[in-house]
């Protein structure tokens, strides 16, 4: 249980992050900080800036101002692939598994071993996802022949194949049935229990309550509120922004 010893260390954080697209404020003074081994959920209405926050963390988008730290390293000036190599993994909102390649190829391309330390545990996580998501036996199948839930699982497993320390999952259960969503949540929880830090964007409140240690609510680019599932779901203000009553 060595991961518990450093579980209160901040693994990824932002300081006053700002991003505008023309007139649209996609991130406004965002101060996010996630601890090692945490399971964090990001929620918020459409256009709140959840995906943009992931893009900013990974460097796909450059922040207008502010600072990002990954594993205590200032990464604001690093290129995307350099940030990934520090131990990040990103699953895009729209599934981006390599459609015309086989599952086997998808996974072997992803097998980058970005993280030098802890290879054993990273390999364990990868194997866990492989067997739970039943991807091993179907290796020769092309990604585009897979049903949507399998595609999502494939992309999650691809990310684990790159041996990350932190995974960012943008709506990983979109398009899944209730059972599949629950199952995905249970697998993610098992991965989290091995010490993997997980940040998930999700709309499904049941899923969020089920998995999250802590929830961050984004609204119009700002962190609107933060707390446990209970605190957030009981908040009148949060209900208001979801119902568009503010």
């Amino acid at each position, binding site marked *: 249980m060595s991961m518990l010893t450093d579980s209160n260390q901040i693994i990824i954080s932002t300081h006053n992050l700002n991003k505008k697209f023309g007139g649209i404020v996609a991130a406004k003074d965002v101060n996010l900080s996630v601890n090692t081994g945490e399971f964090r959920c990001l929620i918020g209405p459409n256009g709140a800036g959840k995906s943009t926050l992931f893009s900013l963390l990974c460097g796909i988008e450059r922040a207008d101002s502010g600072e990002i730290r990954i594993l205590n390293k200032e990464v604001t000036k690093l290129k995307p*692939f350099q940030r990934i190599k520090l131990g990040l993994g990103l699953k895009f909102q729209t599934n*981006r598994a390599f459609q015309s390649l086989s599952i086997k190829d998808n996974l072997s*391309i992803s097998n980058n071993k970005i993280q030098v330390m802890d290879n054993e545990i990273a390999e364990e996580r990868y194997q866990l996802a492989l067997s739970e998501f039943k991807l091993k036996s179907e290796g020769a199948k092309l990604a585009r022949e897979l049903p949507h839930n399998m595609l999502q699982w494939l992309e999650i497993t691809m990310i684990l194949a*790159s041996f990350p320390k932190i995974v960012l999952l943008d709506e990983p259960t979109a398009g899944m049935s209730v059972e599949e969503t629950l199952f995905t949540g249970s697998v993610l929880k098992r991965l989290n229990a091995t010490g993997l830090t997980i940040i998930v964007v999700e709309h499904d409140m049941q899923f969020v309550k089920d998995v999250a240690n802590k929830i961050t609510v984004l609204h119009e680019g700002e962190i609107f509120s933060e707390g446990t599932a209970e605190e957030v779901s009981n908040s009148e203000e949060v209900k208001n922004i979801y119902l568009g009553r503010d």
Partner: protein
Amino acid sequence: MKHLLNLIDGDKDIGRGNKFWAGFFLVLICFFLYPTFVSSFRASNTAFYLLNIPMGFGLCLIWGYCGILSFGHVAYYGLAGYAYGIIAGNLLGNSWGPILGVLGGLVVCTIISGIFGYFVFYSRIQKWIIPILTLVFTLLLETFFVQTSGYQWRVGRVLLGGFNGMTNIPFFQIGTFEFEGYSFYYYCLVIVLVLFFGLRILVNSKFGQIVIGIREDELRTEMLGYDIRFLQCVTFIISANLAGISGLLYVQWGNYITPSQMGILQAALPVIWCAVGGRNSFIAVIFATIVLNWLSFTLSSQGNQYALVIIGTLLVITMVFFPRGIVVMIFEKMQKIR
């Protein structure tokens, strides 16, 4: 060794398994025996079809596998040819001259394609512009070499020769042995074979897989932690060198080179070979390069002025009916029947 054989037999090119390789080596034996049935002149003519294959390979790699269409690979064909002519020409009489010429040609290709690739891939320009940039580059080179007539364009004792090109380029030689006629044919055949196996290993290796990933989805690949710009650059340099190898073989074959080798008509040829055969397959490119070169050579040597029109028509037919290439699609059909 076992590992290498597995890579050669990998699934990133058509043609795998015992049956395929049995057929492959049967055809190969025919190619090796061919010179014993024909004159040295015919063997040398056939060598011309073979010597173009590396450039086809180069385009296959950068276009078919990496997803970047270069319309100007003949630039490196020409540059390597001229570099060889200058170096070997100046070292005439020295038996190391041709070997240094080859090395020089490849160094020039590496440097120029490296610089070009750096600006293209690191500047994040949109992908559809790349074919135009590569074409413009080769046309600029052509224009430059066309105006190099006269004595002021002399490098050492070699004249660049302007529109008429550079002549008296030495044969390739090792020690005192010169490659011409039959021996040049075998020399080309061995080079094509070595490159073929090397490229099969490359595309089935980890590097090849990542390159294919870049073709499929640049951002996804980058977000797995790969420096895609660097990898695109490296792939571009490798493919430029393959074109350079063809350029070297060409000048060693014909002992001359003209700027029109970097012109627009020549620039279109490797694209046509790859499109007609199938740009995702080295085997297909070998087929298409030999057949199309033979076709255009036969047509034009019979005084047919429409050689290019016929080849062009073939290209259009391919694009409409065989979008992934004739050879590749026939191959896939055959595999389904079995």
